[in-house]
């Protein structure tokens, strides 16, 4: 008797995101999970003595100084920008879905390993702005969460972006009250990051963003515990009614 199996909810979500972003011109990029210090920190304008480099947040590799488990998929953005500098392309848009690692205690909303939906868009000066970041997320959230979704920015700080913002989404679950939820960090790529990639910050600018993918899925479907995702438990795959489109 033949039967059909099931994809993991992460795969389903990445497919949805990739499709929505592809309609806005974004490709899908990958990079190593075991990263070097340059792509994870230095090139991203996270200075040598930044607290993020201390033992408590980052997993370091024994016997390999300067190697880390990437703490964000922004390292992939850095690699793609370097490629862009070499190839001489004037613009690029990518999402980088992938696993990242943080050395922090796990609970219902924190995992030491989780997926990020990271990405960026760059182009000639003035062509990719903070307003475009807002327009991109406005559309992504409306298509991912539903037509009632709205996007809101709040000030934030990241070494690799200036200005930096937090992106909130207004989400209304069926039959429940809507609320604003924090979903991603973002901003305009810091000129040092553009420079470190070998590009000219006077000529190239763009935005970058990144947020937990599990969090988006948890919001959309009402999942209470992030630890369900990477438990290898097949009951999780079957905890949803699934329909093919």
């Amino acid at each position, binding site marked *: *008797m033949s*039967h*059909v*199996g*099931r994809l993991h909810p*992460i*795969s389903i979500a*990445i497919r*949805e995101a*990739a*499709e929505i972003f*592809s309609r*806005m*011109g974004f*490709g*899908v990029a990958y990079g190593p*999970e*075991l990263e070097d210090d340059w792509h994870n920190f230095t090139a991203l304008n996270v200075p040598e*003595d930044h*607290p993020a480099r201390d*033992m408590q947040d980052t*997993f*370091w*590799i*024994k*016997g390999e100084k300067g190697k880390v*488990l990437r703490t964000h998929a922004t390292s992939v953005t850095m690699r793609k920008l370097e490629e862009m500098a070499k190839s001489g392309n004037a613009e690029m*848009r990518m999402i980088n879905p992938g*696993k990242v*690692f943080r*050395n922090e205690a796990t609970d219902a909303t924190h995992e*030491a*390993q989780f997926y990020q939906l990271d990405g960026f868009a760059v182009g000639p000066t003035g062509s990719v702005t903070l*307003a475009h970041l*807002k*327009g991109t997320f406005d559309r992504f959230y409306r298509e991912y969460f539903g037509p009632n979704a709205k996007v*809101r*920015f*709040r*000030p934030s*700080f990241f070494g690799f972006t*200036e*200005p930096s*913002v*937090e992106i909130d989404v207004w989400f209304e*679950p069926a039959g429940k009250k809507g609320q604003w939820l924090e979903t991603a960090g973002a901003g305009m790529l*810091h000129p040092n990051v553009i420079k470190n990639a070998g590009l000219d910050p006077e000529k190239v600018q763009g935005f970058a963003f990144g947020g937990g993918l599990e969090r988006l899925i948890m919001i959309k*479907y009402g999942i*209470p515990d992030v630890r369900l995702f*990477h*438990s*290898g*438990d*097949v*009951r*999780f795959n079957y*905890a949803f*009614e699934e*329909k*093919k489109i």
Partner: protein
Amino acid sequence: MKVSLKWLQTYFDAPLPNAEAIADAYTFHAFEIDEMQGDMMDVKVLPNRAADCLSHRGLAKELSAILDTPLKTDPLRQPIPMWDIVSPTLLKVEIEDSKKCVRYMGAVVKSVKIGPSPAWLIEALEAVGQRSINNVVDATNYVMLNVGQPLHAFDANKLTQKEGKYAIGVRGAREDEKIVTLTGEEFILTQNIQLITDANTDRAIALAGIKGGKVAEVTADTTDLIIESANFDGTTTRRAAQSLKLFTDASLRFQNRPSPELAAYGMREVLTLITEIAGGEVVGIVDEYPAPVASLPVVTVSLGKINNILGSDFSCEEVENVFKRLGLDYASSSGPSTTTFTVTPPFERTDLVIPEDLVEEVGRIIGYDKVPATELPPLAGVPDQARFRGIERMKDQLVEQGFIEVSTQSFSKKGDVTLANPLDKNMPALRTSLENNVHEALTRAKLNAPLVLSPKAKLKLFEVGTVFPKEGEFVELRMTERVSEWGESAGTTDNLSVAKLEDYGKDYTPKRRTLGTYQPFSLYPFIVRDIALWVPTGTDVGRTTSYIQEQAGELLVRIDQFDTFEKEGRISLAFRLVFQSMERTLTDEEVNGVMMQVSEALKKAGFEVR
């Protein structure tokens, strides 16, 4: 940073709006609010503003800019008096490494009267969760929380004088040197920790920038003080606090690098307050500041650049208004195509360095809600998703073959790559292959198979994930069994990093699926029962299934019709029923009871239960 709204109000003539409005002002123009409780608001100051905003003055200044309400007075804009009591004959300061201690101001105050603080001071400190100790110690804490400069008061009589002179030293600790702090804990030190010493005896009297020592504690009998207002290096202080596991209000501030200029303002404020509430006389001040910080360099930005980055259409007046509200000195010059602003940051705004920093000030003060949402223009060519689609095509093939995709942990007991700082000591390495994880998942899945699959379906799993063998990481596809359709050579694993997936995925559209709301599954054991019955030909299987479901009630979590055959004009239908509760472990008796009920009902309906 915990602030008191009453305390903030002291900075304004105009009454501040209510707490919710203040919280919104911060949230959408500066910082998140972690907690609100009555008069107290816990503001999550961002790292780039921790140099000036871990203070009531800094947060009042922000609020003034956001609400466009002027500050009554700004202590950091009141000129520092020329100290006419500079007196190296009373106190000298010796700094061993001026990179680690950039500035050290010391003041000798004589004949103070230690006692309780006035009510307003006790109230202010308690409002932000601090405990009142005595007037002098409270004054140092208050001024720190007010302007951001950490301060310390030593009992001068517990220090020694040589030829009538006190001596303060700042030096690295010696290996295994000890100090007992104000709260009585003893610390054994290492060389990377900076100490304040009584330089006449070389005895440690404080952990520099972190906490004072017991030996020079200000107590009820204290009459003479040495007040410290210094600037210790951020990295040195952070590392020291970390190695001692002693994070204090002072270390938190120093690790965020406040301007060394602030030390003089802190000193002025604290001396004013101490003499006011504890009496005494300031008899000498020393300022050891080997390399004074020149005023901050100017930053220029054009209106064109601001709008180019924000995608906005702000006017010259709107931008100038932001600079005015923030109290930033600026000059504007109109060029042929745009206006250029030249901003001179005040000493405490060390975060304003590049044009983009000013763009952020404009964006956040005007408000990001005023930045439009603009769709990106279309891009020439097709976005490159070929590799992604190649991987997803592999997954779709497997799902078609009945495989379930799992995701497992990257950490493992053993491996070629080991973490220097594992979270779980039993899992110190990175997986070299998905094999073990996928098989463990299969073993567990077998126990739960009746909950998710029909009796005849074979349980098959796969995972796509990164593995870390010594040859270098790659993306592995691992299946619990071969796919015979993929040919003789296909095994149970594949290296997707070397496979040519771009060509495979280039023209493929991954299958889309929608999921319904998450339905939590029970963590209690389930019980399986089979039932078979004879039904007349033409009986509707679906309706029979629904009928059984109704009869079995809410403990039935899954039903599969798994076997059918026809004999002598009748049909045998076999069903497998799975029972489970969300709240408890079911007993056999309970389920037997339910099955009895189902059988009876089926009999009544005219079916013969086999």
